[in-house]
């Protein structure tokens, strides 16, 4: 899933100041699962904004709504009527959702209530960690199923580096050295010989370094 975290309230308060009719719009998939922008956070945040407005003597209305995914035009279009009477939307979606709202509603102010963090997994309730960098060219078959692009601080393809100490990365004792993990796992799988294959220089163009990415499936598109 894409993980998100809600921005600090101070930042949200500042960016939402001055709008007389604000819609706080939740996104009920990744953002909800990150506890950043589901219906529950919409209720909490809208209540907080209302109180902040009241305290600062601002007259305004704060509306609440949520849709399944703000990254799908059909869902986004379902709030068109509700949005008509608003002068701004505080979107609790990832950056993709915020931008689709901007595209669909060119005359409205769309504000981001969350920071998009990474593609990751849930370790346990309330704990997420990064696993994928979306580089566009998966090499997990060669690295024992553990990604050095997403999890090595230097994104080394032929690691580890000299900063690997007792299985930890030199940047922090709380960060595992993924190359240590790769070697341990290859040893367990009895595949250590795979380390003898040297990765050539990586082509980063599928990772976005060749400009914004777009994907077209001719068999599906209308």
């Amino acid at each position, binding site marked *: 899933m894409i993980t998100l975290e809600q921005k*600090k*309230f*101070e930042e949200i*308060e500042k960016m939402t100041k001055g709008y007389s009719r604000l819609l706080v719009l*939740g996104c*009920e*998939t990744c953002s*909800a*699962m990150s*506890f950043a922008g*589901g*219906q*529950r*956070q919409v*209720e*909490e945040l809208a*209540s*907080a904004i*209302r*109180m*902040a407005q*009241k*305290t600062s003597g601002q007259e305004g209305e704060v509306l609440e709504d*949520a849709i*399944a995914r703000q990254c799908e035009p059909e869902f986004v279009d379902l709030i068109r009527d509700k949005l008509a009477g608003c002068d701004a939307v505080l979107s609790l979606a990832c950056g993709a959702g915020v931008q689709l709202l901007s595209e669909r509603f060119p005359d409205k102010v769309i504000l981001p209530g969350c920071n998009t963090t990474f593609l990751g997994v*849930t370790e*346990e*309730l309330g704990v997420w960690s990064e696993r994928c960098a979306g580089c566009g060219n998966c090499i997990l078959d060669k690295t024992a199923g553990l990604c050095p692009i997403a999890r090595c601080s230097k994104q080394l393809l032929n690691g580890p580096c000299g900063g690997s100490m007792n299985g930890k990365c030199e940047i922090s004792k709380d960060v595992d050295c993924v190359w240590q993990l790769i070697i341990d796992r290859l040893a367990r799988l009895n595949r250590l010989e795979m380390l003898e294959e040297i990765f050539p220089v990586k082509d980063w163009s599928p990772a976005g370094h060749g400009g914004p990415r777009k994907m077209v499936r001719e068999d599906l598109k209308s």
Partner: protein
Amino acid sequence: MAHPPCKLACPILTDVREYVQLIAERRFDEAFATIRRQNPLPRVCGRICTHPCETACKRGQIEEPIAIAALKRFASDGPWKNQYKPVLPDKPSGHKVAVIGSGPAGLAAAHDLALLGHHVTIFEALPVLGGMLRVGVPEYRLPKNVLDEEIQAIVDLGIEIKTGVRIGAQIKLSDLFEQGYKAVFVAIGAHKDRKLGIAGEDQFEGVISAVSFLRAVNQGQNPKETKKAAVIGGGNTAIDSARCLLRMGAESVHIVYRRSRDEMPAAQEEIEEAIHEGVQIAYLTSPLKILGEDGKVSALKCIKNELGEPDASGRRSPKPVPGTEFTLDVDMVIAAIGQAPDSSLVADELGLTERRERIIVEGPYTLVTTRPGVFAGGDAVTGPATVVEAISAGKRAALSIDHYLKGESIPAIEPAKDVEKVSLARSVVEKTRKFPRCKKISLPADQRLRGFKEVESVFSEDLATKEALRCLHCYLGARIDAEKCVSCLTCVRVCPLGIPTTSKMGEITIDPFACQACGVCALECPVRAIDISLDPRTEIAQDIKKAMSTSQHSGPVIVGFFDLHGNFDSSDVENLRQDYPHVLPVMVFGLRRIDTSDILKAFECGADGVLLARCPPESDPFPEATDRVKRRMAHARALVEALGLDGGRLEICDMPEQGLVQKELIDGLIQRIKEPGQVRSE
């Protein structure tokens, strides 16, 4: 929604869960109204009901069932009972209905018929009302004044009473129709004794049937002075007779029962009480012959049995063991081997064959007899059964008669009950916190035998609320809205009992029977796809608004969320209202239910402060969720502070061991509201 097992087990489908919950909420008058609406004899049932609800109770799978009958008695004995007024219809129907017999079946029918607008006359053969409740159940189990008050409340609905009238003898059924009665309910009970059928039974003075004995005792007579008595039989009537004998001065009382204790039909607790009081029970023993001297009983000759193959009733049948004969020296023998209805007086008119003792009805729901307009129910139809079964028959008869009088067809099939006996998974049983059942309070045995004083006392308010809070809220727990659910698995991860499960495709299932409505999943669900029926989220929001709307004073307004599991009583709530009128209480089944947004909502509605009072850890059914509650409150406080408010306006505290909240905590909160910026004590 499915019915909880306690309700399904009750012949009159009493809303047990509802009134137990109201007791837990200290809303005793509403608890009584809930009981009384369905049952015209709640104080009787609170004392002598065989409480099948307790047998079915889910708590019974954890340690012991909720003491439902004792709670019913608590709710029905309290002074608030007098506030209940049944509502009679504005316009009488104009129909006259005769009820024959004033036992629980007749009384229940009369009550319900009166509420349906019919004019009811009760005909009773005895000089007193109540049937077996009056002449069968001893005073120490059901005080006569309690029965009097219950009956009076029913009679006060405008019911006409004719005692000393034996229908079938002085007045025939057909005469009643000639007198203008449009329907008749025959509820004559089962007052005919069964004979022992052994030698000496009719020969000596001192052999008496249990029904006659109890009838005399209950009317204040002593049929015979006795020193040593034997009671033959193993049912509740045998136990009642034996316990009465002890109270009337008998030095030794033996119950002679042909099977073992496991097969004994009397209620377990009655058997225990009898033994406790000194009744001796000879199990696996049958009487052979009554011996006498000078025309009076002198001894009972018995033989020991062993248990053989199961008989038609499924119980193993006793077989005498040759050579084990012995005699008990007794001067009195009570035969308590069962009663039967005496339908002889109405047999002809109802087309019964003479040998039949029970009145035949078309079905157990319609209670229609062979004669148009005549209905029958209770022990007269079923043979000796329980008081609640008789009440049930009376209520069904009232409905059937009402249909009949309106010229409607009588529904023949009992509405389907979704009977399900569900057992809890072992993991749920193990994870559920145990709370021992509150013990009933009984008179010491030596004080009991000096008279017929009621043995059991009513629960105190303290005990009653504590017991009611043991309820596990069957089917009031989490309900998942599949349309909203995004399969985030939060419920699966937070449930303290491990009840939610997921399929491979993320379809979440929450067993509504096993769920105990702790509320954690409903709260943590990020998309609000889960709500619980106990304290639903919308209700909490409404409660906050309602509390705020009652505020009419100038001081700082504080919304106080109080956990109902605290050790407080209704007077503590009243004192809080008086001492701190600006503290507006919102009562909840655990602070687990209160979200940050609820706290903000309170501030948004104009509260100056919010107080959250956790129950003491020893009364918390889900102590493992305490840390979660604390962390949520820390999050809420951070948000309140981010809003520029003093975080000290939010106070989370533990309730004291006794009472609702410490005054100093409220005073401190008020102080911080008045002078923001002060350092909090916690």
